């Protein structure tokens, strides 16, 4: 270790000054390891306590924890406060902000790394501006987290008590990690201009990595608590918790939610900073300001699309796992009472794709060479809208009696089959492919390939897309409608692989084709219509609404259980609200969140404003 330090000092004379900082980081990591090991020891202690059926001194978890059997009288009430709606809204607002502040450092880290590699300062400035937006949002996340905690303690004390006894240790680590998260974030943000150049920049990037590692761990911990309520684990057949916190954490739906939230957060974060760029673009007065925020908006949209592309697959994986965990939950989710909210979900997801594509099409106006590709827009639109119509076609229709008679039953003979998952999977894959094609045209719009094999390259691209789409249709139709469930669900994997392979091969081929390509003219950043900025707003609003809606569904499928089949909800609100009521609460939350986000955007502008104050201060 000493030898390594000496070599580092020799390579970087400034290293000596950082030795202590590095030692601090190493110490922090060691402390985390020790705490982790302590947790293991403690869990082990709890295990042995089960046999003794006696609490172990010093352990947070008692030997055996039984779910309480409550009555309505066990739920405190505050006059004029609806407990369920309060916790619902506060939790959702906390989650929206948390998703945003966890996502921003992920792509800020990547953009900073790109800036370091290309030595293009614009990337560094953009990354800094992104993280600047998330700082205010970080405070709001913490405030809302505190509010959620107090709401649970005050309004649902028995539920919180039960969960804190099951997860006591992880909740303690969560609080400690929050300190680490805050420290890493503030060092990362406030040290940005300080830690510039050479080794300092590497140190700054490392801080970004630590920030992301801690943030993601925090999310995984909280996901463990949430998924335990859906698919409890670590319990004996009588529902008694024996003390194995890891088993409770590592429950059936933990990893599907981890994956889904990780990807969704990035897409969501991209959409929110896209909305920020749009806000600044629309309020900009100088052309260079418009150019800067146009560029920022483009990059944010790119991030959002990049994460949006694999998102339906992660969502499908989660839904399939819910179905596999419990047929009851699966049917409640997509065939029962929540099915209609899924239609709204499908509409919102389609809206995301439409907004993202529209932004790209409008953005082609930045290039003088785009005119060559404008004629293809209508074909892209036909494919995307066509797939979108299939994507949201419901299986069960809303019919008048007259229509019911005309159709001869509640299902449409030809449109009914589009209402089940194989058709939806095929449609969403086609939508993703054509969105990738929109991006490909956008990339090409300002460049002219100079390689001799342009025609052969284009033919290969055409063949690739044609064969890929044919394969998607074959997999969707044959496996989706003519084989049993296990193959039908399994067919979604080759479908995903087909889409991913086409995207990767196509972009690689295009990159080779356009290596050394001639630029038509310099890109005119800022030459983009205002309506494209509204598409960015729509993207952010649709994402927010979608997350609120799906968050409600995820939580709602537990129905009258706090912890599925283990801990019954006996509160006066232990019923599933009507779809309209739920949609209104989600919409109210969306409006509240967007208002807070606009406040955050406005706040980020205030710091740079100065008011002339001559005559106010005493002259010295």
């Amino acid at each position, binding site marked *: 270790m000493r030898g390594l330090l000496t070599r580092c000092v020799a390579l970087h004379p400034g290293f000596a000054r950082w030795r202590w900082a590095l030692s601090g980081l190493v110490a922090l990591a060691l402390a985390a390891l020790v705490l982790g090991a302590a947790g293991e020891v403690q869990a082990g202690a709890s295990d042995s306590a089960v046999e003794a059926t006696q609490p172990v001194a010093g352990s947070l978890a008692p030997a055996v924890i039984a779910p309480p059997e409550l009555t309505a009288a066990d739920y405190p009430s505050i006059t004029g406060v609806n407990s369920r709606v309060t916790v619902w809204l506060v939790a959702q607002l906390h989650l929206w902000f948390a998703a945003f502040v966890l996502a921003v450092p992920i792509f800020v880290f990547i953009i900073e790394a790109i800036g370091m590699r290309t030595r293009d300062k614009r990337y560094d400035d953009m990354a800094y501006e992104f993280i600047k937006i998330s700082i205010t949002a970080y405070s709001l996340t913490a405030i809302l987290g505190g509010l959620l905690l107090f709401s649970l303690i005050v309004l649902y004390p028995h539920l919180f008590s039960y969960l804190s006894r099951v997860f006591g240790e992880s909740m303690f680590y969560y609080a400690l990690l929050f300190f680490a998260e805050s420290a890493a974030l503030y060092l990362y943000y406030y040290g940005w201009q300080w830690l510039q150049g050479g080794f300092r920049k590497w140190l700054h990037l490392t801080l970004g990595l630590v920030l992301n590692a801690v943030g993601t761990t925090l999310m995984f911990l909280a996901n463990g608590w949430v998924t335990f309520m859906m698919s409890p684990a670590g319990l004996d057949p009588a529902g008694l918790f024996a003390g194995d916190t890891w088993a409770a954490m590592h429950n059936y739906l933990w990893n599907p939610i981890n994956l889904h939230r990780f990807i969704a957060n990035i897409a969501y974060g991209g959409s929110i900073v896209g909305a920020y760029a749009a806000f600044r673009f629309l309020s900009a007065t100088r052309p260079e300001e418009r150019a800067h925020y146009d560029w920022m908006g483009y990059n944010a949209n790119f991030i959002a699309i990049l994460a949006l592309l694999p998102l339906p697959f992660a969502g499908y994986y989660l839904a399939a796992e819910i179905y596999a965990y*419990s*047929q*009851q939950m699966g*049917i*409640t989710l997509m*065939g*029962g*009472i929540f*099915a*209609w909210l899924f239609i709204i979900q499908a*509409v919102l997801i389609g809206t995301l794709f*439409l907004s993202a*594509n*529209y932004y790209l*099409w*409008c953005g*082609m106006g930045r290039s003088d060479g*785009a005119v060559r590709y*404008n004629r293809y*827009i*209508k074909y892209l*639109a036909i494919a*995307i809208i066509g797939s*979108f*119509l299939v994507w949201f076609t*419901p*299986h*069960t*229709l*809303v*019919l*008048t*009696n007259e*229509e*019911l008679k*005309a*159709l*001869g*039953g*509640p*299902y*449409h*003979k*030809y*449109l*009914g*089959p589009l*209402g*089940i998952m194989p058709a939806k999977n095929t449609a969403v894959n086609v939508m993703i492919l054509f969105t990738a094609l929109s991006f490909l045209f956008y990339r090409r719009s300002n460049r002219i390939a100079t390689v001799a094999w342009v025609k052969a390259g284009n033919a290969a691209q055409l063949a690739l897309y044609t064969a890929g789409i044919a394969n998607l249709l074959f997999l969707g139709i044959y496996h989706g*409608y003519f*084989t*049993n*469930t*296990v193959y039908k669900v399994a067919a979604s994997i080759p479908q995903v692989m087909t889409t991913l392979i086409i995207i990767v091969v196509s972009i690689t081929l295009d990159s080779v084709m356009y290596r050394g390509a001639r630029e038509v003219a310099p890109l005119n950043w800022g030459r983009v*219509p205002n*309506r494209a900025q509204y598409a960015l707003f729509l993207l952010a609003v649709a994402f927010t609404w979608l997350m609120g809606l799906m968050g409600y569904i995820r939580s709602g499928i537990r*129905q009258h259980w706090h912890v599925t*089949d283990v801990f019954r909800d006996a509160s006066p609100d232990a*019923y599933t609200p009507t*779809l309209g009521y739920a949609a209104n609460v989600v919409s109210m939350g969306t409006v509240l969140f967007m208002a807070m986000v606009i406040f955050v955007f406005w706040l980020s502008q205030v710091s740079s404003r100065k008011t002339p104050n001559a005559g106010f201060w005493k002259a010295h």
Partner: protein
Amino acid sequence: MSKVTKGLEIPRLLQAALVIGGIYLAFWAVFDLLLGQPIPRSLMGMYMFFVVAGVFMVFTATEQSTRELVGPIRALVEDPSRRALRNVVFAVVPGLAAVGVFLQMQPSDEAPLELRSIHPAPPSSVKIFGKRYDLMSLENPYRHLEKDDPEQFRELVGTGGEVYIRNCQYCHGDKLDGKGPYAQGLNPVPLNFQDIGTIAQLQESFLFWRIATGGPGLPKEATPWISSMPVWEKFLSEDEIWQVILYLYDYTGHRPRSWGHE
């Protein structure tokens, strides 16, 4: 030549309107006239909303196209020489909207629309024939015979067919298409098992629960339920229910939802 072509060009706004109208007519011609299965109004409304959105997205994707599209509208609003036409449009458009609203809100004798969930969520366990069944793990006790003893399996399917013809075909039809002799007297009409969206999407335990407990056994969480399905546990034995399930899948050629590889 190019001048002549330009002279014949259809204005962009009219083009957009023609595309939208054309798509609407195409839906109507294909589904109503050709296939005899009209698209329900609720779904058509959703389809057309996004078709209109898509058409306007394409027509406003470039600056020139947008200018051409909104040019006539802007001229109508801003050009002083079009005052008379503007007044007419400003009177006719809200008038048409008012008529549309009036027609939609007009009281009618038709029963209100219902958001029915066709697939009720099963409970995790259910009491049938005096026993408690765990629906999460319940399997058709005869399904394994399909591989282990095909001859006996065929016999059971045949017995299930007899049970079906004696009891179920009056509503669900002898072709299992939901068109039995009594079907037209029921609302909602009986399920069509041939439809890929019905039994093909369900596990056999779900069918067992639905057949045994019928309409009265439907869960409370999404009431009010409407179903004329009898409580078959009062008329059939447990074996007969499992056998009729074998028959339903055998006749339709569907496979029950399962997580096992074949």
